């Protein structure tokens, strides 16, 4: 059974019990009220009977007309009262019937007494018999009246008993109801403890286990209620978590294996591919040195071309390795003074080619949250590009700065160099993509691929705006500090 059903059952039981008690109290109230009104009636009856006795006495003493008339009135009132007396149960009915009979009998005896001749003191013997008859009637009348009074008191006792019984019944029902409520309440409390609190404690323990990484923890509460349902869902959840975790583990292992392969590949590239190049360059040079005098210009030119090609391929291999190193490098993020990095690169470029007059405009206080080594490589590539592509500009200016767009900080490297057509912009960041002939601007075409990879590793991005003849501006954005 569901906990909610059990709860509803307990509530219903408690409410029904309370209703029963309330009904019982209402019933007892009615009963007591009814019994009280009857007791009032019987009391009235008793009072009437007493009054009847008094007027009877008075008549017997004085033989006046007034008490006689009073007796008649009281008698008829009593008869009405007796007729109006409601009764329930046979015993009461018997008493009422007896009372009715006695009263009627008493009235008849009184009428006889009224009709009886009165002693006149003329005939002694006659007077004597009259007096005896009178005394006989009087005592019968007294007995009858006494018995009627006793009946009235019995009727009063009946009402009192009814009141007592009603009160007793109310007490019993109330007590039983209270016991029932107590039982229901303790049952509910036990239910809550056994079926709700204990499983919740188990669940709490389970969440702690799972949070600590124990994916194999099983809750396994087999009950058929909501908690059982939750337990099954929880176990299903940990099961799927376990599966995903295993999946991630497997993927991680595959990644690690792949990484190792790349590592081995890079090593081979670095080592094995360069060997033959060295031989090509070296032996071409040997030919030139040893047999230069026997070779014509064309042969020497061919040998020089072999050497140049070997060396270019050597550089390509080195740059490819650089690209792969950028991918594999571990990031150490901290604030980097970009202005300082740019200034150092600018100085070294100016030192390498002191004949060039480039105007540098590097904004002060530029800071990014990044891996310093990688950002240095990126800036080196960007500034070298700017330096290279302004080599044919009259008054070359290279600017490094920052601006805010849509509430986000963007840094930029801008030059007024040769620029390019934006139609080729999407090819710009691919490896070995060049937008100019190598004879015009030397390079391997891998620098911007490295730059883009560096910003991707920082979860940032780089994009470019350019116009042929007017220069290019590279914008880059790194994730805000603290959100990496």
């Amino acid at each position: 059974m569901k906990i909610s059903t059990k709860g509803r059952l307990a509530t219903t039981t408690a409410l029904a019990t309370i209703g029963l008690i309330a009904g019982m109290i209402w019933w007892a109230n009615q009963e007591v009220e009814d019994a009280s009104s009857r007791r009032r009636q019987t009391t009235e009856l008793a009072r009437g009977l007493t009054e009847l006795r008094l007027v009877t006495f008075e008549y017997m003493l004085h033989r006046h007309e007034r008490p006689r008339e009073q007796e008649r009135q009281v008698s008829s009132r009593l008869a009405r009262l007796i007729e109006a007396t409601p009764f329930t149960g046979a015993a009461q009915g018997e008493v009422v019937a007896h009372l009715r009979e006695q009263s009627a009998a008493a009235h008849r005896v009184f009428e006889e007494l009224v009709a009886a001749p009165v002693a006149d003191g003329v005939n002694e013997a006659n007077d004597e018999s009259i007096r005896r008859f009178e005394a006989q009637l009087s005592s019968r009348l007294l007995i009858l009246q006494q018995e009627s009074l006793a009946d009235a008191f019995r009727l009063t006792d009946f009402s009192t008993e009814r009141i007592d019984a009603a009160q007793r019944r109310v007490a019993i029902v109330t007590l039983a109801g209270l016991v029932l409520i107590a039982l229901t309440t303790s049952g509910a409390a036990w239910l809550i403890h056994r079926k709700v609190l204990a499983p919740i404690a188990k669940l709490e323990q389970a969440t702690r286990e799972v949070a600590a990484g124990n994916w194999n923890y099983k809750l396994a509460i087999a009950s058929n209620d909501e908690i059982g349902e939750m337990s099954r869902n929880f176990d299903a959840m940990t099961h799927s978590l376990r599966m995903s975790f295993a999946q991630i583990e497997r993927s991680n292992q595959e990644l690690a294996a792949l990484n190792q392969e790349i590592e081995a590949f890079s090593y081979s590239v670095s080592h094995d591919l360069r060997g033959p190049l060295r031989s090509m360059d070296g032996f071409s040079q040997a030919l030139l040195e040893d047999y230069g005098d026997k070779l014509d210009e064309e042969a020497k030119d061919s040998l020089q071309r072999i050497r140049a090609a070997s060396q270019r391929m050597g550089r390509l291999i080195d740059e490819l390795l650089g690209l792969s190193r950028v991918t594999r490098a571990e990031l150490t993020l901290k604030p980097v003074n970009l202005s300082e990095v740019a200034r150092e690169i600018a100085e070294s470029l100016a030192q390498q080619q002191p004949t060039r007059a480039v105007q540098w405009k590097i904004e002060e206080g530029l800071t990014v949250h990044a891996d310093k080594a990688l950002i240095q490589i990126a800036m080196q590539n960007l500034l070298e590009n700017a330096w290279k592509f302004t080599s044919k500009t009259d008054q070359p200016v290279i600017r490094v700065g920052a601006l805010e767009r849509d509430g986000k900080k963007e840094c930029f490297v801008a030059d007024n160099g040769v620029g390019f057509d934006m139609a080729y912009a999407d090819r710009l960041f691919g490896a070995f993509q060049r937008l100019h002939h190598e004879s015009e601007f030397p390079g391997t075409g891998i620098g911007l691929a490295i730059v883009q990879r560096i910003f991707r590793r920082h979860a940032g991005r780089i994009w470019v705006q350019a116009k042929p003849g007017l220069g290019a501006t590279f914008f880059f954005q790194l994730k805000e500090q603290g959100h990496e």
Partner: protein
Amino acid sequence: MSDVSKVILLVEDSPDDVALTLRAFKRSHVMNTIAVARDGIEALDFLFARGTHADRAGVPLPTLIILDLKLPKLDGLGVLKAIRADDRTRFLPVVILTSSKEEQDLISGYSLGANSYVRKPVDFVEFTEAVRVLGIYWLMMNQSPPENSP
């Protein structure tokens, strides 16, 4: 140019690189005898007069070892480890001359006690210059430890 009795041991498996290195030495006027070992095991046999080099017992050790890293049988780092582990050779100058500029190789080389780490340039002119500087430094400028030092 230098004391030609000093022997250089070149540990190098590529015949091309051997030829180029020898040529570079020659062009730099380094006239010393250059012994060549073609793998790691042969290099150790040469140094410790074992196996095919058993006849070298009693012959003085080379003055300089030029060591490639990628070698058959036992690689350059293994050779370096063995050299540094033996009392007879632990002070021998060892220069790593290799194609690799992987950071890991540099760190391993130096932490195992290499005296120098030189990368072979593709450009033969640069290569010759590197070999020349090596020769000058290690054969002429550098003071070797005493022969029978502990």
